[in-house]
């Protein structure tokens, strides 16, 4: 299932894709950590957007579109990017490592955990890419 980004349908599609992708399941089998994505308003995105993913051992246990600000006060990782940068990552125009190393994607959380699991992060981006049909 693919859908237009950003939308609740897209996030649902991403959840389904994560839970059915064998390659991701294998690469991310040791991953334990939830994420909050904060997408800063820019271009076609008129107001800040957040979504939440609870990723655990290669599966997605929970996905929430626009969660309450107080719903997930201490996620394992907080990832922030502008709308243009996040869409560039999702369309493959911006390498996710480039995004991280040039601060187009800001990361808050355990860097030790992140550096141990770069392949998981990169494969998550592949899955998200494949779950995206179109960008608004």
């Amino acid at each position, binding site marked *: 299932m693919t859908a237009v980004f950003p939308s609740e349908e897209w996030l649902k599609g991403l959840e389904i894709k994560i839970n059915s992708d064998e390659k991701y399941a294998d690469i991310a089998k040791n991953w334990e950590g939830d994420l909050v994505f904060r997408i800063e308003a820019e271009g076609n995105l008129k107001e800040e957007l957040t979504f939440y993913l609870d990723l655990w051992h290669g599966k997605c246990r929970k996905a929430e579109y626009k969660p309450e600000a107080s719903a997930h006060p201490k996620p394992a990782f907080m990832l922030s990017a502008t709308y243009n940068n996040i869409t560039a990552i999702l369309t493959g125009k911006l390498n996710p*490592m*480039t995004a991280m190393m*040039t601060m187009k994607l800001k990361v808050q959380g355990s*860097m030790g955990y992140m*550096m*141990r699991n770069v392949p998981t992060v990169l494969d998550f981006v592949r899955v998200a890419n494949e779950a995206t049909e179109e960008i608004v």
Partner: protein
Amino acid sequence: MQPILKINLTTGTTEEFIIPKEWERDFLGGASLAARILYPYLTKELDPLSAESPLLFINGPLTGTSGPTTGRFVICGKSPATQLWAESNIGGFWGPELRKAGYDGLWVTGKSQSPVYLWVEEGRLEVRNAASVWGKDVYQTQEFVQEEVGVKGARVAVIGQAGERGVLYSSICCDHGRMAGRTGLGAVMGSKNLKAIAVYGKKKIELADVEHYSALRSEANRTLKQDNQAKIIHELGSASAANYAEYLGAMPSKYYHQGSFANVDNVSGSKMAESILVGTSACQGCVIACGRVVNIGDGTKRKGPEYETIVGFGPNLLIDDLVEVVRLGELCDKYGLDVISTANTVGLAFHLYEMGKLTKQDTGGIELTWGNFMAVRQLIQLIARREGIGELLSRGSRQFGAAFGAEDEAVQVNGLEVAYHDPRGVSGMALSYATSPRGACHNQSDYFLVDWGNTQENIGITYFDRHAQAEKAANVARHQNWRTFFNSFVMCIFANVDPQMQVDLVNAACGYEWTLADMMRSGERGWNLKRAINNRLGITRANDKLPKALLKPYKEGGAEGFVPDFAEMLNAYYEARGWDKESGKPSKEKLMELGLEDVAKELWD
């Protein structure tokens, strides 16, 4: 910049060398400026370990200004290991202290009749007896000198036993474990009977526009502190790179013959952070604090290893015990040995032992079986003392390999051992190693970070696939130019500082009106000048090559089956550089374009 203090240890005479303003403007400071200053003296006939050999400690215009990671200086001369241009970049607090003492450089020539150390205090120089610390390690010597000069805050650059005995990859240490490791300048210092240099001063560092510089500095440091890469290095040290490098097949194992190392996490920065790490340490003014402070169970706080030590004494020798890696790195530091070259040369010994070219008889009974860290410890001790097999090992991998009829097994370029970023995993390193002015060096262009994705689009450093080849050659050249600027600035390559901010800092500090293009041109000028020095010392295109091991595909890991098409890459690189494809020299036009008319004349007329 301030004057350079020249000292002739044979005669005891001193004089001040005033840096010509046009040289500062063209070469900025640090290594590029040193290349300009030393250009007339670095001849083919010069023996790097002779009295005539110059040893230049030099700052950059931002050294000690608390700019983003600018507490650094460089040490330059002619390398006894490579017989080529030598430079080694070092942090700590010594460079800033020299600046406060009234000088931006110390230019040492001659040879003292007996061991001495120099004491530079507030513009005054004293030559003192060092006989009682000759034979002592770097930390014992620092302690002695600090106590004898009796000035709190004095900083001491020092050599260990390796430098005294002329090991060709001896380092110079300042503060606690900050090492100028590469190219063997510790041996040059030792050849002059110079054990240490202590410096102290209170002079204020002058800047062209203090107020503007202060504002820029605050902004740059604030931004740097929030940078992802800086946060990773702060939290995990440079060894943070281990897991991902291994995944890419860019972290060599078993002396560059194995493309993966299953136990990499045992020696990773992440593991260190959650097991033995008890603190961090920083160079002057640095907000990153990459230095590791560890406790390995004996209650003592000691320096923890960085990436090169982790890999060199870990996967390179199939050792997966982090505590042993800490001990081996510390042993090298104490003796004053470069960890990269030591671990590489020891790795070659293990490799030749496995091949049957080196026997137990040759090693004096030591079994060089992979993973045998006790054997590594024994070899390090023998190297520092130049005893037994250590005598041959002390000459570096090229000579060691040659002694056993296996020079081509040595993983080195032009006499400098390859660092631990494998071009089979990150192809840009093929050109970085083959064309670096000091041999196989990863600091003249740590292009592996660009291959990971760290781009700088405002100076044209863009992203290419990590296995792209000739198409990235011009990108590598740009990156080398930029890093040459770092080495003249002098800024640490761990600092992800936007190039425009770097230019703004230069302008505020020096009163220039540089643009990004000026900055890159200065880097390119420095790179070509060092190349010209090396051409004069005998370097041709035939020297721009990779060792055999790096051109053999791995059978496993993230780089399985890949080798760079090096000939094509080099052709494209020469094109991008404007270098003559026959001779390997920068073309006359390129040298003229860069304002190096005298060099063009000498190389071409």
